[in-house]
């Protein structure tokens, strides 16, 4: 189906909920003095959006708003995922002491606005729409990064993010303009059709255009060499925002990238195997990107003492792992990516939640804040953190292991040995720094000066739910992989 604007509204309930909540919270902020209700409202909006996205699952596939966005399994999977990410970010914000004295009205407005942008990133099938959505998310992220104005580090991070983002999106929009010039259309499916005919003369410029567009995507998913902003931004931003950037905004970047590269620059063949358009071997480029990204992320993470910064480098490394599924040009690879992104949500958000509990308790986020955590009243947070760390490292029986298993299976199936070997070595390296946190929590004895760990029940409950999820999907992952399988539907008209 191909719906015009008014008919499409019935199918964009999740976005409508978020937009209404965005404007509503801003207005309500002017009226009420009990500000906590704003955060609770934002939480409801994210929950509502998740529910509405889930309800769309049975709907007919098609284009909405005159081919601006697609309603297909892929979009619905990411809408569900992204609303859950926003939900987690709002939930963490409610429990974060860092944000206590900041403007809640504006904060939740911007957070929900960013969530709206990610929805359109995942479903855009038009270059203009995709760029607008990307800019939307970027602009709101800059502000959220520097939201605590008393924090100099935050302001510095926001400025770096802004400058880097400006350059990346400038490069991207130039690349898009070249693609528009070559294909004469902004619509992904049309671009795919028009570029299908190989052209000797257009090969070099198409390659440059794709490279430039890749700069924009690479920046969003923090792929080397476009990753430079992420350690500073992750460290400087308020913790819930960091968690959101590393899960929500990154997943949206992956969704947009998959849709662009697979729908516009590839075509599906038989048996779940994809082929690139002739003369444009973008997978080679990204194989290199994947290898460098995971290696650099892991090696840099080894030397970090600030846990937030460590998780930033770990997040870069994981972008490299996820890209493994991207380059194999098969449905198995894409399925592994979706599965990995979902498990990454559980374990990474979990790690950030425990970090937030430690930060709330001791106002510190370095390794020493975790010293002997298990022996000074933090047995449960320490146990949860251990689960998340081992899962991030890819140790069985946790969800991270299954995610990596599917990624490796897809790569080995394509006989890309080099990539598989580098990724395996990287997993071993990463175990070192993840295990270091676990060792600090359990084997180091707390000093007298270390505060007794106390925590509020709702952060604890959230970490607990995520930890249980990490374990459950590590043992019984069938439903999740089935969901990923079902979501691999791209509507192409």
């Amino acid at each position, binding site marked *: 189906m191909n719906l015009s604007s*008014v008919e499409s509204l019935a199918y964009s309930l999740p976005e409508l909920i978020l937009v209404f909540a965005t*404007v509503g919270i*801003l*207005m309500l*902020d*002017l009226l009420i003095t009990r500000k906590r209700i704003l955060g609770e409202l934002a939480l409801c909006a994210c929950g509502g959006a998740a529910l509405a996205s889930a309800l769309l699952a049975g709907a007919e596939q098609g284009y909405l708003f005159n081919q601006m966005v697609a309603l297909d399994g892929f979009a619905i999977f990411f809408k569900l995922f992204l609303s859950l990410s926003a939900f987690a970010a709002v939930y963490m914000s409610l429990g974060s002491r860092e944000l206590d004295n900041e403007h809640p009205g504006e904060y939740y407005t911007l957070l929900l606005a960013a969530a709206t942008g990610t929805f359109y990133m995942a479903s855009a099938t038009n270059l203009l729409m995709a760029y607008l959505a990307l800019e939307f998310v970027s602009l709101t992220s800059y502000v959220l990064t520097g939201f605590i104005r008393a924090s100099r580090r935050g302001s510095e991070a926001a400025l770096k993010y802004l400058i880097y983002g400006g350059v990346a999106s400038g490069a991207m929009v130039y690349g898009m303009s070249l693609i528009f010039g070559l294909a004469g259309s902004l619509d992904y499916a049309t671009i795919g059709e028009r570029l299908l005919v190989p052209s000797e003369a257009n090969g070099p410029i198409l390659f440059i255009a794709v490279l430039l567009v890749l700069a924009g995507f690479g920046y969003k998913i923090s792929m080397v060499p476009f990753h430079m902003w992420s350690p500073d931004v992750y460290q400087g931003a308020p913790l819930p925002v960091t968690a959101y950037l590393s899960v929500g905004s990154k997943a949206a970047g992956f969704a947009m990238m998959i849709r662009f590269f697979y729908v516009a620059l590839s075509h599906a063949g038989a048996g779940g195997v994809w082929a690139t358009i002739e003369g444009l071997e973008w997978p080679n480029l990204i194989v290199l990107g994947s290898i460098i990204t995971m290696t650099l992320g892991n090696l840099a993470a080894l030397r970090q003492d600030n846990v937030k910064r460590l998780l930033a480098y770990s997040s870069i490394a994981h972008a490299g792992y996820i890209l493994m599924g991207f380059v194999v040009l098969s449905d198995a690879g894409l399925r592994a990516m979706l599965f990995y992104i979902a498990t990454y949500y559980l374990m990474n958000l979990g790690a950030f939640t425990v970090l937030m509990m430690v930060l709330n308790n001791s106002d510190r986020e370095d390794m020493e804040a975790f010293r002997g955590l298990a022996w000074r009243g933090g047995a449960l947070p320490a146990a949860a953190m251990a689960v998340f760390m081992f899962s991030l490292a890819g140790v069985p029986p946790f969800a991270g292991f299954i995610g990596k298993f599917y990624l490796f299976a897809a790569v080995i199936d394509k006989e890309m040995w080099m990539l598989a070997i580098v990724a395996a070595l990287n997993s071993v390296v990463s175990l070192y720094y993840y295990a270091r946190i676990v060792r600090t929590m359990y084997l180091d004895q707390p000093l007298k000066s270390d505060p007794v760990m106390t925590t509020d029940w709702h952060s604890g409950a959230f970490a607990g739910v995520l930890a249980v999820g990490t374990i459950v999907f590590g043992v019984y992952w069938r439903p999740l992989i089935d969901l990923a399988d079902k979501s691999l539907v791209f509507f192409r008209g």
Partner: protein
Amino acid sequence: MQFEYANVLVFLGLGLFLCAFMMGLGSLVRPHNPERKKLTTYECGEEVQGDSWINFNIRFYLVALIFLIFDIEVAFIYPVVAVFKQWVADGNGLFALTEIFIFISILVAGLVYVWTKGDLQWIMKVVVPVKPADDPKQSQSPKVGGTIYVAD
């Protein structure tokens, strides 16, 4: 169409030429004997105070920023308004009106926000804490004491 804009170019050239011409002519005929007082900037007869390159107040920036947002809004609305008559003639006037209405009402929310928060007010309320000595009742917890109107 480009020809119409050639007018603009001609006017631009004419303007530049006239400026250069007048100033050149002036420099040819006027007497030239500079002195210190003469070289100072004319400021309505007042004595010149410092440099013109000073740190501007952030409020200029804030207002310019709000202006810019609504400037862009105008740029979006303008082409829609240009075709509005035609849409009404085609019987789709209500649809077009609704679309513009939604667009503007979302931005009006922004206007309401900055207005209510006092960002459009040049004279801002700034809250200063009262010193504990001034008020013994409030010495336990530093609380708001008064407002100073800052004129920038």
